């Protein structure tokens, strides 16, 4: 990464780790990447990285002094022996075909996946408590995560940090597609930052503008990393991705500015940050013919991200001259011409439900490989709730209208009311093709208490996850350097010729047949009546015998006989 080192950069000293821990127990970096999209929308991605050189899981060392790292998360990590934690809250669906690939993908709703340490004996118990604690920290209803929507993927979610554990018994993955993200979730998320929302890039995060967007996703990723591989450190990355829509922001003019996007401008960098930068993607605008960027900056950077070499204009907020005379930094992009066609992303997936009626259906997942000549394998993971009974013998995978047999299938069928279906498949995608995966299911009738208050809205099925190592046009960097921008260093790169991509499909909304909710008492009465009719008939036939019917004399005759008996006179017949 060609970049002149800014003044005042605090660097951690890897060799004197003990001293470093005492004097500088970590560092904090913040950055904002602005990428104009072809449709005229604009994609802003915030990343905040807190590094902390300590080991939560070391025996006997009780961590009590928190500086940059938030105490709530530190306590969570040590109490539940968490090795990696990834949680994201997303509102909206990322449109890969129009916007390209995001830096850090996330599915609609809430997603949580955690790798526990292998010393944990009761992973399910820890998972349950962890979800409840996180639910409190983020003010989200993560307590709805229980064993009925948790799965243990065997291959799709390998650890992103240190460690080579492969025992997926210590991995738990759950999504809540129905979860809605709002200000209530943003506020505790902002509180985890060292500067809060008072200084640095976080002042831009005002909810009235952030939620008035096409896509909003906030995430927390915690993992252990190695600092020049001599010491272990904990890395906390908080990311916020937002896509602003050109037309709903009003005015209609193709022009974006920090003030228009966030209704704020930047005044200073976070004093606790070792680096604070704003990157603007100008790869499509080399000569300035597409849009005009102001204020101008001499700093330029290049990075290889998502298999492509991109050029960025860099604004260093730790330098006072970035803010100019007015002590305020407002970036302005004014469009001059129309942009050409966007490069199609190499991997793209869609999912939908086919069929009619409330009895059966079919889930279709379509995966597109847009590479002109390279085939590559993808890992498809599907987690379907138990009330949609999948029939795995109806699974068909076709590419270019021919059968394509997956080389690895891991299927765990659902147990009613205990765990969902988990289907993981390794599919080889032929070049420049569309692969369709279909599986039939049957819809179950649930007990009336198991329906949500609005049962006719339908039930959500979480997004499928397609993970792949996509062949890269440009050689990727395999070694980590400290001054690499955060957006290019999130996913560890193992080889130069491919990069890791995860694509989430749409969540599905499926209707289930409903009983009549006003009828419990009536149903009990009617069914018991029919059973009682049966019982009554059999009881009569079993306990009574046939007799000739001698009709009893009418009342008048009986009275007369009574009187006659008293008189001692012969009775009437």
């Amino acid at each position, binding site marked *: 990464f060609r970049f002149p080192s800014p003044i005042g950069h605090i660097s951690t000293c890897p060799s004197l780790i003990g001293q470093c821990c005492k004097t500088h127990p970590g560092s904090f970096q913040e950055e904002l990447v602005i990428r104009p999209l072809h449709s005229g929308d604009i994609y802003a991605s915030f990343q905040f990285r807190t590094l902390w050189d300590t080991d939560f899981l070391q025996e006997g060392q009780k961590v009590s002094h928190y500086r940059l790292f938030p105490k709530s998360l530190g306590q969570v990590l040590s109490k539940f022996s968490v090795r990696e934690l990834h949680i994201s809250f997303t509102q909206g669906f990322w449109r890969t075909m129009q916007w390209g690939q995001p830096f850090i993908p996330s599915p609609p709703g809430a997603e949580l996946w955690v790798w526990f340490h292998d010393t944990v004996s009761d992973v399910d118990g820890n998972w349950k408590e962890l979800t409840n604690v996180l639910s409190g920290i983020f003010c989200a209803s993560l307590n709805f995560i229980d064993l009925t929507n948790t799965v243990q993927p065997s291959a799709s979610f390998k650890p992103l940090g240190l460690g080579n554990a492969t025992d997926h018994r210590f991995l738990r993955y759950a999504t809540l597609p129905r979860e809605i993200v709002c200000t209530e979730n943003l506020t505790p998320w902002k509180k985890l930052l060292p500067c809060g929302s008072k200084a640095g890039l976080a002042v831009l995060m005002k909810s009235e503008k952030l939620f008035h967007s096409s896509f909003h996703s906030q995430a927390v990723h915690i993992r252990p990393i190695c600092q020049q591989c001599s010491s272990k450190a904990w890395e906390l990355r908080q990311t916020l991705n937002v896509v602003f829509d050109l037309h709903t922001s009003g005015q209609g003019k193709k022009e974006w500015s920090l003030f228009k996007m966030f209704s704020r401008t930047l005044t200073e960098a976070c004093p606790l940050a070792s680096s604070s930068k704003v990157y603007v993607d100008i790869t499509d605008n080399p000569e300035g013919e597409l849009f005009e960027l102001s204020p101008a900056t001499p700093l330029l950077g290049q990075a290889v991200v998502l298999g492509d070499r991109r050029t960025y204009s860099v604004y260093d907020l730790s330098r006072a001259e970035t803010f100019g005379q007015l002590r305020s930094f407002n970036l302005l992009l004014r469009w001059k011409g129309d942009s050409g066609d966007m490069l199609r992303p190499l991997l793209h997936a869609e999912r939908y439900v086919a069929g009619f009626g409330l009895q059966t259906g079919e889930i279709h997942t379509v995966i597109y490989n847009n590479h002109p000549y390279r085939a590559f394998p993808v890992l498809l993971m599907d987690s379907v709730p138990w009330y949609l*009974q999948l029939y795995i013998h109806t699974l068909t995978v076709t590419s270019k209208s021919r059968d394509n047999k997956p080389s690895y299938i891991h299927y765990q*069928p659902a147990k009613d009311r205990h765990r969902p279906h988990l289907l993981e498949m390794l599919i080889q995608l032929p070049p420049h093709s569309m692969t369709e995966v279909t599986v039939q299911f049957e819809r179950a*009738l649930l007990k009336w208490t198991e329906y949500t208050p609005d049962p006719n809205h339908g039930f959500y099925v979480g997004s499928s996850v397609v993970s792949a190592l996509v062949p890269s046009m440009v050689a990727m960097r395999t070694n980590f350097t400290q001054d690499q921008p955060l957006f290019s260093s999130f996913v560890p790169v193992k080889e130069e010729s491919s990069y890791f991509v995860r694509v989430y499909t749409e969540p599905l909304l499926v209707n289930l047949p*409903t009983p009549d909710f006003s009828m*419990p008492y009536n149903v009990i009465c009617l069914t018991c009546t*029919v059973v009682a009719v049966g019982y009554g008939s059999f009881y009569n036939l079993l306990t009574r015998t046939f007799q*000739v019917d001698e009709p009893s004399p009418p009342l008048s005759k009986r009275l007369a006989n009574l009187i006659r008996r008293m008189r001692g006179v012969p009775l009437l017949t």
Partner: protein
Amino acid sequence: MAAPLTLLLIVAVTIRAVLFRSSLAELISARVEVVSPLNAWKRVVEGLALLDLGVSPYSGDVFHETPLMIYLFHFTVDYAEIVFIVSAYFVDCLSCFLKPLDRAKMFRKQKYALESDRYSADCLELLRSPKEMFYIPLKVAMFYLLNPFTILSCVAKSTCGLNNAIIALFIFCTLKGSALLSGILLALATYQSIYPLTLFAPALLFFLQRLYIPVNLRRSSFWFFTLQYAFMYVGSLVVITGLSFFLLGSWDFIPSVYGFIFSVPDLTPNIGLFWYFFAEMFEHFRLFFSCVFQINVFFYTIPLSIKLKEHPVFLIFMQIAIISIFKSYPTVGDVALYMAFLPAWSHLYRFLRNIFLVSCVLLACSALFPVLWHLWIYAGSANSNFYYAITLLFNFGQILLVADYFYAYLRREHHLTHGLYLKKKDGTEATLVLK
């Protein structure tokens, strides 16, 4: 007799073959009245597919067949249609062969009863003559093979047909007098679905009657035979269950099959009474009502056995009917099994009180089931209450049918011993009531 029977068999095969090859087969296999989560063919195929993938079929909640079914279908899954047609033939052939056995015995019984003045003199027209009984086997075969319920069940490849075959074999062996075979087959039937356990009592009573052992709890000969038969039955059951354990090496099939039958977790609509009841049940009472409904099936065995201890064949019919109505996942295949026996009691026709009403109700309900299902699930213009109402009516019709036949049987017995034309004390014609 042979010619009409052969003709009947050919017609039945033709109908089934035509339907197997038509597009209706798919439609029928998906109908909830014909298949249930316990015996759907789709689930058998799913279980075998899971086995191929290396996952135990009982690890999920989709497969509820016994391991011996896996054994059977592992080898014959490609010839499934033939298996089902053959099993349908088993049932009918056996039911029609059992009739001649019963006949001879019955004639002997009638003769002795007449001669010993146990039967009254004027009930001659109630006695059954060989001529009228000649065509009963053919009628039974026809009632089973050409019954639309059976045809639907066979075309859907529901394993209910196989269960029916086992029960029919069991009845055949019982009437033939072979206690060991009868015990083994009863164990197999119980192993398939627990409810045939109640058929132990009528089989026992039949053998006791055959061996002229009086049913007296104080007699040692009674206990001796009962223990013998029970030992054969329980022994075969243990052996079969042990064999199932060795197939997959685990006891997983017990909660998957028997736990499923008793606890009714799957609330897929069917023609029974359980599904909507448990869909609308308050959580607090779930266990209580599950127990009540399951006890309801087994509960009539002892009283019926006491009442019908001299008529074990009719007792078998009653038990099968009660199982078909009150079991947890009934299908039309179960209904067809006891309906096949109805021609055997055709002499009761004059004493049936509600037969017209009952047949109208059953016909109307059978026609309305698919209509209201379509309206609920596909058109969306009706809701579950419509289908539930027809379920109630259908079961009510079945209960009336069975109770009516029971009434007619008891009444005929009464007339046989007390005379057909009864008179009141003053000489006018009497009416019989149950008191």
